[in-house]
Each structure stands twice: as structure tokens, then as C-alpha cells.
């Protein structure tokens, strides 16, 4: 061991010279005051604890960020993909959507034709299945027929009695 120590003597002398590397003059004069002030203000503790808590609750987020840090190409690819999604989203949002309401109107028309084909006895006893649109997505059943939303004729058929004056 002593031989080893001797062979490394020059190295130790060189390493000891690192103690000559000094921070700027007066650096330590207010070091402790800065530490105490930061403790008082809680500058360092609160945000860091919040970040640590977030990463503890969602470790995948930390791994995700570490991947970004380790592989900048991955971060670039991810950003590029996000931009593509954004651009496609904007393009499709601006395109007039004409196809969606059409089936609903067609279905209302179908319902009207079905109602017309029904016998009068069936029409005299209106049932919910006829009155309500079959594809209503509203969880609360409404007696308001969907067709009325579009200003179409009301399929609600009601038997009325009237007398002709003079009879």
C-alpha cells in the first residue's frame, strides 16, 4: 500500500492544488443569510414539493419527461405529431359538415311515412314508441318529438271530434 501511496504522491499534490480554487471574494459573507432567507420565504421548498408530489402521483410523467431529456429526437417527433394533429383539426373544423343532419331528417321523413301508413285505430291510441324519435340520445325521455326541432310537421296524431255547424 505504501508503494501505491508513493506512486500517487504527485497526483495527490496536484489534487491538493484544487483547494486553491476559490469562489469570488466575499462569496461566503452572505451565503448563510441567503439560505435562511430562502427558508423563511419557502421559495425552494413549496414548488419543489409540489413537483415531487406530482411526479410521485404520476411516475409515468417523470419517465416521459426523462425520455424527452434523453432523446431530443423523440421530443421533436412528438412536437411534430402534435402539430399535425392541430393542423388536421383546424382543417376539419373549418369544413362545413353537411352529412350529419341528413340521416336524422331522412329518418323523420321515414317516421312520417310510417305514421301515414298506420291504420286509424292505431293512430287513435298514440303510444310513446310512435311519439318519440327512436334514436333520441337524450337520457331524459321527452314527450317533445324530435321532428319539431327542425320545423317539420308534427307526427303527433290526435283524434278530435267536431261538429259541422248546421247539422
Amino acid at each position, binding site marked *: 500500500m505504501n508503494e*501505491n501511496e508513493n*506512486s*500517487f504522491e*504527485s*497526483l*495527490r*499534490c*496536484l*489534487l*491538493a*492544488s*484544487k*483547494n*486553491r*480554487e*476559490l*469562489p*469570488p471574494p466575499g462569496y*461566503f459573507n452572505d*451565503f*448563510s*443569510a*441567503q*439560505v*435562511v432567507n*430562502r*427558508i*423563511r420565504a419557502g421559495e*425552494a*421548498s413549496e414548488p419543489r414539493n409540489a413537483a415531487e408530489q406530482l411526479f410521485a402521483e404520476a411516475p409515468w410523467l417523470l419517465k416521459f419527461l426523462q425520455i424527452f*431529456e*434523453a432523446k431530443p429526437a423523440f421530443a421533436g417527433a412528438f412536437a411534430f405529431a402534435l402539430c399535425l394533429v392541430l393542423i388536421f383539426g383546424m382543417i376539419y373544423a373549418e369544413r362545413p359538415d353537411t352529412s350529419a343532419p341528413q340521416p336524422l331528417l331522412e329518418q323523420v321523413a321515414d317516421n312520417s311515412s310510417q305514421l301515414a301508413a298506420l291504420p286509424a285505430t292505431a293512430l287513435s291510441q298514440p303510444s310513446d314508441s310512435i311519439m318519440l324519435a327512436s334514436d333520441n340520445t337524450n337520457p331524459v325521455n321527452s314527450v317533445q318529438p324530435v321532428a319539431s326541432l327542425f320545423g317539420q310537421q308534427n307526427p303527433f296524431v290526435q283524434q278530435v271530434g267536431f261538429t259541422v255547424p248546421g247539422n
Partner: protein
Amino acid sequence: MIMAEPVEPTESESPAAEEESELVRRARSGDLQAYDDLVKRYQERIYATIYHMTSNHEDANDLAQESFIKAYQALKSFKGGSTFYTWLYRIAVNKTINFLKQRKNRTHMSLNDIDFNAEHDPDLMALISENTPRRAASLTELQEKLNAALLKLSEPHRLVMVLHDVQGQTHDQIAEIMDCNIGTVRSRLFYARQQMQAELADYLK
């Protein structure tokens, strides 16, 4: 002034140790003035260790401050099983190693100036003038080579070398700080010295 003189372990019976225990007790109960005194006691050693590990003054400044802040926040968990100094050192060392692992190979040296009196250090000047092939090599160049060589070591090897050969701590103290046995400290020190000697062959006998 030479930074981070070799550390004398504080004996548990010494008045200094008793005074330190009292400061720790007061700081634990929220006395920031007492903690300010503790920071003043160890600020140079803690800063120096971190600086020699990172070779960057700004990083060392941030990490040293954060280490003291974390130590204050964790003071209630300090049971006194080791000295406050060792406990504080562990916090600083762990924080530094975590920082270096995150930073990985993106090292940026921001070295402190060399003490003006170094030019009058006969041992150091002899090392430069006699052993350096380029006799005009300046202290600054030597400093940069030395720090660059240190940064090539792994964090555990660099830490052992800094604590032992730069700061003059004993194997026992290093083993306690690094929470490993003395044999590990010795083997890491030997390997680190071999690596450094190979890196700095131009400057050494």
C-alpha cells in the same frame, strides 16, 4: 485562504460537539439564528465538495443552498445516530449525485479563480515546471486539465477522490458518508487514482 481544510472529526464529548448539539436542538425547534450558525460552520466544506464534484461554481452554489434548506426541513428526522456534519454531508452528496445523473454528459465547467498565492506554492510550481512537457503550461491550463480528468470519473469514484485527496477526509469518514464499507472506499480510491494518473500522465512523474 485555502478552501476546505482537512476535516477534524468532532468528538461527542468535546465542547464543540456539545455546542453543535445545542445549535441543532435549537434549530430543530425553529430557531433560524441557530441554523444560521450551523450553516456558517459548514458552508465552505459543503460548497467545496459540491464544487469539486461539479466543476461549476453556479451549480455548486445552487446545490449547496438547496442542501442546507433540505437539511433544515429534514432536521426533525435527524436522530443523532451520526454527527450533524456527516448527516449534512450525506444530504449534500446525494443531492449532488442525483443532479449529476440527471445532467449526465452535459457538463459545463465554470471554474473558480485560482488563489493568487498558488504561484508561490513551491510544490505546485515544481510540478508544473519540472514535469510538464510544455514548460509554459500555466496554472489555469493545469486546472482545466485536472477538472476535465475528474469529470471523466464516475460519480462514486470522483466523490471518494474529492473527499480523500482534495479534502483530506479519512477512509472511515468517507465510508460513513457514502454508507459503504472501508474496503469499497479503498478500492474506489485506488481505481480513481489509476484513472487520473493515466489522464494526467503528461503532468505527473
